[in-house]
């Protein structure tokens, strides 16, 4: 095509970019679209969990903690600062009690708020 060596060979594209919408997404003012199966924050289903703790064994960063609250009832406490959102615990769970949501806006000012009960 136009393979003559000349300076300013990007002229036509650069000039027409003024008339196109900019490619920037104004993130906090415009909501970010994430894909359908994006790995976000985890969700735990107490009715299905049987306390086998396979998720704790397989977690690469020791982020999830299963705590017994009553007989045959367990709750999960997740450290959001340690979780790497790999969803290995979802795969390892023998009862399908864990699943991931699309929630990713998880920042907090206070470190204590990052230990959440899911």
């Amino acid at each position, binding site marked *: *095509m*136009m*393979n*003559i*060596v*000349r*300076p*300013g*060979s*990007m002229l036509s*594209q*650069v000039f027409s970019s003024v008339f196109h919408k900019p*490619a920037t997404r104004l993130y906090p003012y415009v909501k970010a679209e*994430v*894909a*359908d*199966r*994006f*790995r976000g924050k985890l969700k735990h289903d107490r009715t299905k969990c049987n306390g086998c703790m396979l998720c704790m064994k*397989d*977690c*690469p960063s020791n982020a999830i903690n299963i705590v017994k609250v009553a007989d045959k009832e367990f709750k999960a406490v997740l450290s959001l600062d340690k979780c*790497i*959102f*790999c*969803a*290995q615990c979802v*795969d*390892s769970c023998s009862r399908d009690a864990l699943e991931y949501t699309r929630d990713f806006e998880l920042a907090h000012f206070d470190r204590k708020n990052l230990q959440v009960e899911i």
Partner: protein
Amino acid sequence: MGIIEIPIGPQHPALKEPASFKLYLEGERIAASNVTLGYNHRGVEKACEARTYIEDLYLIERVCGICSHSHSTCFISAVEEVAKLEVPKRAKYIRTIIGELERVHSHLLWLGVAAHEIGFDTLFMYSWRDREVVMDTLEMLSGNRVNYGINKIGGVRRDISEEQKEKALKAVDALEERTKYYIEIVNSETTLIGRLKDVGKLSYEDAMRLHAAGPTARASGVDRDVRRDDPYLVYDEIPFNVITDNHCDVLGRTIVRVKELIESYKIIRFALNNIPQGDIAVRSPRRIPAGEAFSRYEAPRGEDVHYVRGNGTDKPERVKLRAPTLANFASITYMLNGGYLADAPIVIAAIDPCFSCTDRSISIKHIDSGKENIMDWESLRQYSIDWHKNRGFNAKNIQLKVK
């Protein structure tokens, strides 16, 4: 003016990762250079020995942000070879597709970074805008924009549905059109060619002598590509070309990388259209039997090599990674000497350095005496030849096929 010593790094606007390049200048010419690495050492190999194979997968993936799937697949291939698992065809196809998408992502990122190093910010912004298309496709297929987490021992974790396949094909078509525009620009913009031509020259003999790998070597005419020479995954079923170039300088490396993008689009289209039906994983045991394996992979930067040794438990005994940047590193000093200071950032960027992948330390310890010694290249080579000779293995009977 005498000789001044200019430090580029560890912190410098030209470098994306810390490394120390001390340049000794006479006027604008570089008379000598001194290169040190090691700022990114994180003890990955030792950390792997303390974690199970399942946890190690995620750790190895995070060795590098841009070639994460390469490291992960290479490690998993070695583990599967030790465990003698037969990975289903569909899983191999999915791994190939993600691997080639990662290659596209890495080369577009490199194009932007190289343009920024020579002051051409428009090309930088345009190529990173197109990189967003690839990252959105990867997010749709695997769940995350970097560190995809799609491998598991015995296969992959996610499947590709018909709708995802259609969207991915459309994204590849849009990207191909933009890549053809970049090829045109690289061949016709005067200031770009003026900055990249005859810079960082590495002749064919020097590339062989200094063990360059990947696009750095292919731009000097060395016809080496692990995907064709030693096919892994499904590369023996997919037709593609290996791009070489004879410029032997940074312009050649740019042309090789941009043309490799077109080849990657061909591979992705073929793989998406011909993916066979079947399972996506086989069941794998938690305890991997004893054994050792060695696997190679063509990462976007060159040849990536992993070695895994298991001993029957669920934790590996030894994991060794050799990243491609370490192979290309010896050429940097050679290319910097005799050049201009203004060319130093682009010469460093032209080998596509990823110092996070590279920093491992090699130290050899005698098991009996407990003494540790650091060897240089020649004595290490001689040590390996003697070790093999003592076991009756004569290197002279082997013929290497090197083109």
